[in-house]
């Protein structure tokens, strides 16, 4: 039970943030906008995204699967975001 709660809280907060950070970094490389505009768009989109991930982390049946999706998604997104040009 304790492990379950910790895993879900971690996914809702740290997991969600890292995923959103990676997604924002990836999006910033592909969005055809002024770079100052990209900062605003990605930062704004991260707020509802983080809330949705938090709800999902507590509402889903298997938290391990949620962690899997978050990590599995974050790694390629982070690579796209940080890929040197």
């Amino acid at each position: 039970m304790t492990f379950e709660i910790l895993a879900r809280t971690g996914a809702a907060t740290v997991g969600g943030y890292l995923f959103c950070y990676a997604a924002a970094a990836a999006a910033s490389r592909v969005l055809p906008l002024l770079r100052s505009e990209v900062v605003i768009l990605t930062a704004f989109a991260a707020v509802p995204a983080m809330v949705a991930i938090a709800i999902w982390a507590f509402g889903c049946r298997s938290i391990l699967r949620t962690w899997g999706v978050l990590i599995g998604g974050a790694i390629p997104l982070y690579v796209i975001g940080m890929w040197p040009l």
Partner: protein
Amino acid sequence: MKEGFTQSMAFLHSWAGLLFGGVLFSIFFCGSLSVFRPEIDIWATPQLQGRGELNRAAALARGLSLLEQEAPESRQWRISLPSEREPVLQVSWQDDNGATRTRRVAPHNGEAVLATEGGRLFARYHHRLSIDDGRTSRVGRWLIGVLGFAMLVILVSGVFIHRRLWRDLFVFRPASSRQRSWTDVHNVMSVLALPFHLVIVCTGFAVNYWIYMPAAIDTLYQGDWRTYRADVGQGAGNDMRLADVPGAPSDNLAFAALMQRAEAVLGQDGVSSITLLDRGRETAVAEFRGRRDDRIAQQMDRVVLSGVTGEVLTEVTSRPPLFATQSVMVGIHYVLFGGAPMRWLYFSCGLAGAGMIATGTLLFVHKRRATARSVPERRLLTIAEHVNVIAMAGLPLASIVYMWGLRLLPQPLADRPHWEISVFFYTWLLSGLYATLRPVARAWIELLTATSLLCLALPASGWLLPGSDLPTTLRQGDLATAGVDLVTFAAGLGLALFTAYLIRRRDTVLVLGKLAPRPG
């Protein structure tokens, strides 16, 4: 979780609410008060009493002559014009050592106004917990970001619990069990103001968005946030730097001519502040900033003119779409638009938010009390009870003592804002200590009683300062000063009735059975 979606949302809603209830209450409470920040400033400043109608042209002339008299040789002058809500004329200049000197005076008579923290204390607490000073630290803003996120999660999970949201809205059962009527109060305050709660938290993120999610700054600016800030500021600050060496003396256009050109862009009466560099020289430049209290968007329009020819060097009156969106969202949060009705809407919705948080947290503690068996849970609930009384009764007491401090501290006092802030936090600390030493129920009643008495008596403080007493301010039609007195008095009256009701009903939800011993 395993038990199904609604149950896991209830778990999330109630435990996150319990964990963050106290501090979220304090943010909603202080945020609501900071709607009236300028009014509290005026209320606390005797030099602004009896100021009469604002005359912007006369204020501008006074600002210019003040600078001429104080710093005729300075290379940089700045004038911030007064407005109806913030009737203070501020002039500043760069002295010989390159330091900025500032003087704030009453526009109608030139008297120096009191340096006071005023309503800004509540604003600073609610957006940075009064932690960050200047630009060095971000701890306070990060904590607020985390709390804002928690608030959104609690709100959204709360919506998921209430599938019967619409029906619950019209349910109020004051005569049924007390727990149920408190639940009804919680639901009404949450649902009626739900759009406000969501909007106010989301737009709060729009203020410091780049601190919270700097991913694109890291990728597109290599993490250099200063360059990003300059980018997004559309050059503000960069085109107004003094040259290392001042230019040769030269004829300049008259100030009135420059002002006229600026108003052609910013609109009649559309200038809020003016910066003049190198007056009377070849390098003379004048910057005019627009107002932001006549629109929702918070980014100010800006015109930079050559002081010699009057030609427009820079003109910023439009901005890229997402920046414009951000600017409007910040404006929705700051509520400088819409006048008094909009401020009252924000104020009441914000207080409804504080009430929603308070009733929700108290309810949950009460419900768990009845079923808690394990020792750690009972201990946790005891701590939560104390946190609740410290936040929800201690903070209002600290706030009203702070208001008294604004008027009672000596007027010529070195570093007065610092003393004012100390009054607030030490009162809160002491009331917290008091609340932990007393039985919780007693602490609630006593702190609420003290708060309501101090609120009821606050208008009396006006007689201690020149021209600040209620009959005088009412006669002069000074709605800011008289309004703060009257609203505080009304709040004291409401709080006194509420406290009397709690004592009479021996309310078990709020005081957790100490006044009325629980069976068993």
